[in-house]
C-alpha cells in the first residue's frame, strides 16, 4: 500500500510538472499580454516598456528557470491584470465558491443517481424506468445555460424571489446553480447505474443471494450495486474533477465567483501567471482524484489490490 502511494505520488509530481511545463510554453506561443495593458494608441516603444516591466523581454529559458524555481513555493508571480499574487487569486476563487458549488452538484448528481438508476433497472421497461430514462434524456439534452436561465425565471422572477437569481454566500444562493450544474451528470450517472445494475442483476451471485433469502434491498445495494459501482466511481471522479476546475457556463449565468470565470478571462487576456497557477491547481485536483478513485476501487471490489 505504501509503495503504491509512493509510486503514485512520484507519478503525480511528474504529471503536474509536465502539465505546467507544456502550458508555460503554449501560452507564450500565442503572444504576450503587453498589448492588452496599453491604450490602442500606444506605440511600439510603449509596448516594449510594458514588456520590460513585466519581465517578458528576458530570454524564454531564463523565464522558465525562474518559473520552475518559484512554482514549488506556490509563487506564480503577480497576475498581469489584477497585480496581485496569481495563486492567491486562484485560491480565492477556488475556495469556497468553486468547491461549494462542485461538492453540492456532485452530491446531488450521485446521491440521486443511485436510487434512480437502481429503480430504473429493477423496473426495466416499466413506467418508472420509462420516466427515469425520459428524464435523463431531457436533462442531458438541455444546455446548462438554458436550464439555468429557466430556473432563474421560474424561481427568482415568477415566484417573486423564492430563490435568488444570482450571487453567492448562503444555501439559498447555492440551490439553483447546483441543480443546473448537477443536471447533466445526474442523468449520465443514472443511466450508468441502470446499465451496470441490469448487467449485475443477471449474474449468478445475485441469484444465489436471493436463493439464500437475502433481503432484496441488501441484494440490490450490497451485492449488485457494488459490482456496478466501478464505472460509476470512475465517471463520478472525473466529473467532480471537471466541476472543481470551474463550471464556466453555470458560473456566468448565476454570477458565481468561481474559478472557471477567472481562468476563462485569464486566457484571452494572456494573464500567464493566473493561467499557470490555475492549471497547476487543476493538475493537482485531477491527480488527487485519480488516486482517490483508485483507492475506492479497492474498497468497493476486494479483487483489486493496491500493489
Amino acid at each position, binding site marked *: 500500500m505504501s509503495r503504491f502511494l509512493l509510486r503514485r505520488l512520484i507519478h503525480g509530481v511528474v504529471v503536474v510538472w509536465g502539465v505546467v511545463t507544456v502550458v508555460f510554453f503554449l501560452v507564450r506561443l*500565442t503572444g504576450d499580454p503587453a498589448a492588452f*495593458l496599453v491604450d490602442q*494608441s500606444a506605440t511600439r516603444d510603449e509596448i516594449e516598456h510594458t514588456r520590460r516591466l513585466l519581465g517578458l523581454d528576458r530570454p524564454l529559458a531564463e523565464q522558465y528557470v525562474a518559473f520552475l524555481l518559484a512554482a514549488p513555493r506556490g509563487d506564480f508571480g503577480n497576475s498581469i491584470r*489584477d*497585480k496581485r499574487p496569481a495563486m492567491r487569486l486562484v485560491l480565492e476563487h477556488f475556495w469556497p465558491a468553486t468547491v461549494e458549488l462542485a461538492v453540492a452538484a456532485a452530491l446531488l448528481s450521485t446521491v440521486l443517481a443511485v436510487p434512480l438508476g437502481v429503480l430504473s433497472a429493477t423496473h426495466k421497461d416499466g413506467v418508472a424506468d420509462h420516466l427515469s430514462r425520459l428524464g435523463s434524456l431531457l436533462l442531458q439534452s438541455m444546455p446548462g445555460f438554458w436550464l439555468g436561465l429557466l430556473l432563474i425565471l421560474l424561481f427568482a422572477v415568477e415566484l417573486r424571489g423564492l430563490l435568488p437569481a444570482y450571487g453567492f454566500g448562503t444555501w439559498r444562493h447555492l440551490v439553483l446553480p447546483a441543480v443546473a450544474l448537477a443536471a447533466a451528470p445526474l442523468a449520465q450517472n443514472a443511466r450508468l447505474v441502470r446499465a451496470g445494475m441490469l448487467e449485475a442483476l443477471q449474474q449468478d451471485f445475485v441469484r444465489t443471494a436471493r436463493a439464500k433469502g437475502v433481503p432484496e434491498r441488501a441484494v440490490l445495494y450490497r451485492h449488485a450495486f457494488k459490482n456496478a459501482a466501478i464505472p460509476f466511481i470512475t465517471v463520478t471522479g472525473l466529473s467532480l474533477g471537471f466541476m472543481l476546475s470551474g463550471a464556466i457556463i453555470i458560473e456566468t*449565468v448565476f454570477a458565481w465567483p468561481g474559478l472557471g470565470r477567472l481562468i476563462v478571462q485569464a486566457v484571452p487576456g494572456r494573464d500567464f501567471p493566473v493561467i499557470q497557477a490555475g492549471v497547476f491547481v487543476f493538475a493537482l485536483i485531477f491527480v488527487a482524484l485519480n488516486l482517490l478513485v483508485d483507492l475506492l476501487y479497492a474498497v468497493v471490489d476486494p479483487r483489486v489490490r493496491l500493489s
Partner: protein
Amino acid sequence: MRSARGVMSWWWMAALVVGFAAAMADAQTVDGVAVDAEAELVVAVPDDTNNMDPRIGMGSTRSAYIRQVFESLVDVDAQGKPVPGLALGWKPVGDLTWEFTLRRGVTFHNGEPFNADTVLFNLDRMFRRNLDRWGVKDVTAATSFEKVYPTVSRWEKSGDYTVRIHTSEPLPNLWDALGREPLVPREYTVKNGIEALNERPVGTGPWKMVAWKRSDSMRFERNESYWGSPSLFKRLRFQVIPEAGGRLAALRAGQVALVDAVPPLDAGVLGRESGIKVVSSPQKLYCRIYLNARPKDKFDSGGKDGLFGDPRVRLALNLAVNKEGIVQKIFHGYAQANASPVASVAYGYAAQEPYAYDVKRARALLAEAGWKDAGPDGVLRKDGETLTLQLLFPAKHYGQGFDETTPAVAEMLKAVGVQVVIKTIDYGGLLQTVTKGTLPYNGGFSACRTSNNLDADDYLRDWTAITLINWAPYPPELAELYRATRREVDPQKRLKLLADLQRRVRDWAPVVSLYQEVKIYAASARVLHFVPLTDLHMDFRGVALRKP
C-alpha cells in the same frame, strides 16, 4: 448627585434629539417623493474591475469603479461638458503654462488633505519621474504620459492650492489630457505602497470602498465628509452579473435596482414593462473597420504598400455601408452613425456630412481609382490584382451588436465588388497582429476605440504616430493641420481648426466608420434622477431611492 427627575429629563432630551433626527431622515424628500437615505442601491454590472489604481488604466470597466472613489481635477457633467472637480478652475498663463486652482477643504477618505502636493505627486507618477524619491514602484500603465505628451516639461506649486504645469510647446488640451486623471493620496501611497491603492483604495470621491469580493461585488459607503452634495442613499453595491439575461432577471425579481449594459434588443421590451425605466446615452465607444493604408516601410509588408492607400477606395467603402440600416436593424436605434472621426460627445466635435449609402457612387469612386474590371465573380480587379479585404474580426469581444455588424458589412462591401474574407480571431490574436505589424497588405480589422478624455484631440491623434490602430497615417497636409490644432491656444480658433481637420479627415476617410455606441440602462421605479453620462462611468450624486 443628580436627582432621578434630572436623569429622566436628560433621557427625554436625548430621546427627542434622536427622534427629531430620525424624523428628519424620514422626512427627506426629492421632488416631493419620500426617499430612503439609509438604503442600498444595487447595480448589476457585467464585469468586475481588476484593479483600483487609476494609473494602471481607465478603461470602461475600471472607470465605472474607480471614479466612485477617486476624483480628477476636471469633472464631467451629464452632457459631457467639463466642470470643476478637484480644481475650481484652470487657465493658460501664456502659451507654455497652465494653471490649476485647487479646491480647498477637501480630504481623502482617510483624512489626508488634498492640496498642491497631492497633484505634484500624481504628476510625478503619471510622467514616471522621482519614483525612487517617493519610494513607489512603476506600474504597467495604459497611458505613458511621458511619451504621449513629451512637451510637458515640469510642474510646480505656487501656494498650497495652485499648481502650474509648464510645456516646451503649446498644449491647448492639457486641461483635459492631465486633468481627467484620477488623483491618489500622496502620504497614503508612499506609506502603504501602490498595492494599497488596489487593495484598500482611498480617494476623495463621494463613495468609500468598504468591501471587494473579487468577481462578485464591490460595496461602497457614502463619504459623509464629501466636499460636494452628499449622496442621497447610504450604500452602493456593484454586483457582477456577466450574463445580460441574468442582470435583467435580477431586476425583474427586485434584487437589483439598476442594470448596466442592457442589450438593444431587450431595451424595447423592458421599456413597455411597468415599474422599469429605460434610459440611454451616446457613448465614446466608436466602432470602425481599419484598413491597411500604411506605406510598405511601416509594417511587415512583404514589399507591398497597403492596398487601401487611395482615399477614394476608402471613401467608396464608406459609401457602400448602410450605416443607418445597421443602427436601425442591428441596434434598434441604440447607436449613432457618425461621419466625424471624433465621437459626437467629445469636446470639439463638429458634425460632418454623413456618408450617404450610395452603391452607385461607391462603384464610381472605385472605378476612378482604377478598380473597374469585374471578373465573373463580380470582384473588381486592377493590374491583375483583385480587390480583396482580409478582414480580421475579433468576435465575442465588443458585444452582440458588433458581432452582427461585421458580417453584415462584409456583405455590403461584396455588393460593390470587394471580396471580403473574414477571419474570426480572438481579441488577443488581433492585438498580436497589430503589435507585430503583420496585418496583410490587403488586410483590415474591425474594432472599437473609446476615450477617457473629453477633448477631440484624443481621437484625432489616432493617425499621427504609428500605433496599434494607426493603419492610415496622415498625409503631410493633414499632419500639419493636426499639429496646428496642438499649437493653437485660443479656444475659438482651435475649435475652428478642429472642425476643419474633422471635415478633411471625413473626406480622406482613414477608416470605414460603422457606429457609435449608445449605452442603455434599465432602472426600477425606485431609482430617482439617474442620468446616464456620456463618459465611461456612472455618477450617483443626486440619485435617490424612493421609500418602498
